């Protein structure tokens, strides 16, 4: 599938972007999922559930966005033509996503440090939850619009097509919206699975075990719906997904492992399997559209910056990683010791 002779610096940087995106999905994605569970916390333990979510997201959630920043910076530095196309056609969903991230973070902080008054707490909690839900749905719809070729097609009509056709229809259609809901489902599934490990109260742990299992079924249904819609809305994508059968088999195996380990209450194993499942889904999409950044027109090679820029970028990434990775490790370790 991938010809090793064609791999070079542009592909290496594309792989680094994919790894950073993977890290963002596993860390920031679970934070978004926590927001959904905060909104629909219910039953006699809803306060305990919300406290667990707030404690788990804690003060380190902001650090998780560093991965999104890495993705954006590498994309505009290494693949400026692709970044330009995404920035133009997807201006509206990217703006909504940014506002969602800002509102969500602000509401979380205002709820934690603001008035203890019940109405104020509820208002910030609602803003936090709405931001947590809207942002992943829009993020997923951006992925759907890129994957089914709608962004590429709309880019050809900038300046000639209508506002709706170029700036709205690519991401506000059935397939991208189902992918958006799928992303929200995956993040909620990831969060519930992580929370089974974080919980100290057995009843609360059981609450999140049940939610993780329900969300696993919903994720499966949404994946099936996305594939069915892709048959007509993105036939090329559906064919390319099938061409990585080993990866798809591994995804199914990790999904089954997550469900079985959750069922058997092997929470730490379930956390690893869930992270593997979500990562494999992400890589399945990325490999399905390889060698394109924006299929079917803009490939990694077509949109890559000059070689000298890419070489300097690799040096920059190396220096950045030497600072970032130990810092993150220290940060996570420090808060783990405190808690």
């Amino acid at each position: 599938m991938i010809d090793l002779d064609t791999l070079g610096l542009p592909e290496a940087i594309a792989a680094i972007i994919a790894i950073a995106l993977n890290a963002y999905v596993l860390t920031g994605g679970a934070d978004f999922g926590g927001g959904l569970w905060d909104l629909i916390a219910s039953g006699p333990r809803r306060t305990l559930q919300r406290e667990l979510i707030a404690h788990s997201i804690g003060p380190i959630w902001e650090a998780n966005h560093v991965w999104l920043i890495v993705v954006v910076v590498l994309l505009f530095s290494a693949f400026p033509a692709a970044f330009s196309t995404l920035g133009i056609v997807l201006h509206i969903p990217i703006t909504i996503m940014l506002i969602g991230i800002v509102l969500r973070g602000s509401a979380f902080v205002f709820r934690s440090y603001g008035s203890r008054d019940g109405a104020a707490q509820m208002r910030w909690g609602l803003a936090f939850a709405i931001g947590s839900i809207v942002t992943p749905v829009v993020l997923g719809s951006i992925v759907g619009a890129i994957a089914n070729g709608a962004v590429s097609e709309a880019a050809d009509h900038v300046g000639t097509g209508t506002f709706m056709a170029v700036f709205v229809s690519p991401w506000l259609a059935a397939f991208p919206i189902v992918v958006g809901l799928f992303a929200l489902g995956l993040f909620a599934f990831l969060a519930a699975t992580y929370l089974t490990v974080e919980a100290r109260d057995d009843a609360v742990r059981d609450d999140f075990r049940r939610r993780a299992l329900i969300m696993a079924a919903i994720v499966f249904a949404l994946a099936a719906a996305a594939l069915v819609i892709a048959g007509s809305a993105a036939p090329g994508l559906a064919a390319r997904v099938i061409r990585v059968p080993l990866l798809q088999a591994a995804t199914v195996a990790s999904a089954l492992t997550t469900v079985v380990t959750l069922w058997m209450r092997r929470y730490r194993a379930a956390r690893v399997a869930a992270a593997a499942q979500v990562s494999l889904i992400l890589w399945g999409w990325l490999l399905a559209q390889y060698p394109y950044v924006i299929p079917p027109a803009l490939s990694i090679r077509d949109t890559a910056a000059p070689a000298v820029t890419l070489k300097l970028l690799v040096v920059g990434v190396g220096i950045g990683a030497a600072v970032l990775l130990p810092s993150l490790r220290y940060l996570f370790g420090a808060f783990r010791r405190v808690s």
Partner: protein
Amino acid sequence: MLRTADAVTPMPGLAVPLALFALLYLGLGAIVAVLIRSLIRETA
């Protein structure tokens, strides 16, 4: 040479996101000011 006017996104209606972000940050700034004031009052 690439002038700012030539580099701007071709999407029409850019005044809308500009106004949105301005309002968002003005609102957040006002909320932070109120919260800090009440925190100072509580600890004074």
